[in-house]
């Protein structure tokens, strides 16, 4: 059976240090404003606004909007589910940027073309971890084959993550546990 690769983001482990996105930038030497991976604050529900994070890159969706709307067929899905974008085809029309619910495709103003996370497919093919996975000090990110992987309590969405029904992202989450907080304000 074909694989279905996705990122598993363990929000319980993540403490928002940004090493994943910096390591990605370091290895792929991205332009300062281009962020293939971004660490988002989870703004609702868990702990406190700026204290829980989702580290997100491309969600390598099963029904990717980017691929559907691209007029020059720059997007393709590999057999293992990784969504690739062929930058040589890209005409910089930004349709994919508008279509992606997760704001994944990034516009490179120098090249006037779009780029995005490719799940380090060349590294995966060599049996190596993706850059973000290898770099994370908390071991909070992993890549999983959704056809094989099962663990209790895995979620396909978290507050602030757009509705997964639209494009069927392959990213999965483990939500944070919350300890007891004894605070001296009214909210404590």
């Amino acid at each position, binding site marked *: 059976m074909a694989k279905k690769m996705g990122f598993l983001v363990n929000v319980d*482990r993540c*403490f*928002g*240090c*940004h*090493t994943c*996105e*910096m*390591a990605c*930038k*370091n*290895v792929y*030497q991205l332009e*300062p*404003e281009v*962020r293939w991976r971004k*660490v988002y604050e989870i703004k609702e529900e868990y*702990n*406190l*606004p*700026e*204290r*829980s994070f989702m580290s997100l890159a491309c969600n390598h969706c099963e029904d990717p909007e980017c691929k559907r709307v691209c007029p020059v067929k720059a997007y393709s899905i590999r057999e293992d589910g990784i969504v690739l974008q062929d930058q040589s085809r890209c005409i910089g029309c930004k349709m994919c940027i508008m279509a992606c619910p997760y704001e994944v495709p990034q516009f490179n103003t120098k090249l006037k073309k779009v780029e995005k996370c490719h799940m380090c497919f060349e590294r995966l093919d060599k049996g190596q971890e993706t850059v973000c996975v*290898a*770099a*994370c*000090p*908390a*071991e909070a990110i992993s890549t999983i084959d959704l056809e094989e992987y099962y663990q209790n309590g895995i979620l396909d969405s978290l507050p602030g993550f757009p509705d997964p029904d639209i494009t069927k992202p392959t990213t999965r989450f483990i939500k*944070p546990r*919350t*300890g*007891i*907080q*004894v*605070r*001296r*304000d*009214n*909210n*404590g």
Partner: protein
Amino acid sequence: MKQKVFSRRSFIKGSTAAGAALGVSGSIFNFMFTGLKPVEAAEETGKKVFQNACPRNCYDTCSILSTVENGVLTKVEGNPKNSFTRGRLCAKGNSYTRSVYSPDRIKYPMRQKGRGTGNWERISWDEAYTEIAENILRIKKEYGSTLPICLNKYSGNFDILHYGIEGMMSSIGNTSRATGTPCWPAGIDSQTFDMGTIYNNDPEDLVNSKYLILWGVNPAWTSVHSMYIIQEAQRRGCKIVAIDPILTQTAVKADLYIQVKTSTDGALALGMARYIVDNELYDRQWLENNSLGYKEFIEYLRDNITLEWAADKTGISKELIETLAREYATAKPANIWIGYGMQRHTNGGQNVRAIDALAALTGNIGKSGGGAQYAQLETWGFNYHAMTQDKPAGSGGSGDRAININNFPAEVLAASDPPIKMLWIACRNPISQDPEASVSRKAFEAMGLVVTADLFMNQTVEMSDIVLPVTTLFESPGVNVSYWHYWLALNEQAINPMYEAKNDVQIAMELSKKLNELEPNSSTYPTSGDQLDWVGKEFNSNIYDQFGLSDWQELKNGPVKAKKGLIAWEDGKFRTPSGKYEFWSEEAGKFGHFPLPAYLEELKPTKEYPLRCISPHWKLNIHSQFQNLDWMEAINSKPFIELHPDTAKSYGINDKDSVKMYNDLGYIIVPAKITTSVPPEIVVVYEAWYKDKNFNVNFTVKAIPSDMGRKATGMPGLAFHDNFVNITKV
């Protein structure tokens, strides 16, 4: 190269020399290579991997592998041989290629015509050395010593060879020295009084704890690799408790977070101790065998401390203090990690002593999974060969003069007989990072010559006369250890120094040469020597023994970890005068402190300045380093002030409103960030240097000393977090 300032005259047209120089006919011209050359032999190519170590003032001191292709640094990654960092870096470490090859690096020695004017001219190294050396010799002649020359060097680079800067100063005679440390001295003294020195368990041992209190420490931001170990301990069943006035990133990951009132940590610890004593949860046998004065301490607790008092002081309920004390005293082994933030108060030293006492009372010291962790200097037993230099004969003065680093500008201005006339700044950005930034500027203005060695333009360079370009960690060799973990790493020279950058030892050697040219025997510093050989000269048999090495060159294969001494005080041989853990410390008494860990009243806000400003570390920088890089700016590009919603409401401030934070010293204007991570009585502004922004939280920070620090570091620490301010919407 020597730049001349153009005059209009030299540019007047119609020079008669023109024809002669170029050939009149226009049919002759010539070419000479200057910057280029014909290829002679093939230049070194290919890919090489080097051992490096991050030398920043940070717990983690990561082992780095750097990839160099055709002489160019192309990749930086963690070294998997280091089991503490596990082959990973942090967000800052992953940005290193950006600083090495930033177009904005300082490339050449330069001289500023008028401090702060921005009118810089390029000079040669020889001109720089000449001007500096002449100035030194002139001062020596005029004042009869080199005491008017003052060095301010600290933590920008903790590589051992960088102590060559101190050596350079010693080699010219007695000088004035910025002495002490802003960061952590109160806590160092506390542990010195209690146990004889600072000494923590191997942090990799944290996984063996059953109960761990993170007391005023935020490793999620300041020691990411420790945070992994803490979470691993948690996964293995250890209860994690965070005690902090701020709900930090670390605190939200804890099983229990307790929001203590700032600077009352000692009251909490003493309250816990009282409960432990009352319920006989202490380890009497350990105390009998290993400690001095525990009975006096118990007596002090019974006479002076009640849980009601502790609850009132700390804002934590009596019941919770009891629960915490019981859990801590009964879980074995139980561990406490004491952060540096909680000792930046006028009672910080005593507070750390009270926390240490908890660990001792419960017999947790000297055990795997236990202890009162603060820091360690056990792995720092180098020869300090680069630093140790003889003073030249007849150089005047009877010894170096200590200038308190924590009140540096005021003491520089006040120094007399002789006054201070020249500053040498290295590995520091004092105008950004010291308190009372306006006094810093005044002190600089009073100098005859200010020399700064740095990588990038910053506020201190702006106020200097001469700036010297220095190497990055990849451009010169060295050796690094941590004040937290037990790894030793060689730092290899991976690439050539870019432009005209030189490392500090090389600068010292060449300046020495110039001084001796101008006045024989005026400097004792060696004038030549291979840098890598100098690294070798830092090693001795104790280090070899400690790390299981037979030769330092073995470090070329990767970092090594100490083979022994990984559990602090395991042998029970404390380095106090009595050889025991000292609840009662005569030594503390000699330095004017109460000999027991007693409560010292915390500083309180005033009517005029009712809010306490805490200025802790931010996750994307270390002091004035890293936050200025554009990759960091893509994540966060501006400073802000954190306010509790209730506080914001009472001042009529909304999120993102511009807020002026002020006191009698100065002010800053920053946008508000409203968050319940801070309690209502506190505002938080993270200390940092942002590129091109007139922001400096130290505009408002007074040089108030903390209670301790004098014994171990020569000067008391700084009460950075006893800064009281007011705010207003602007």
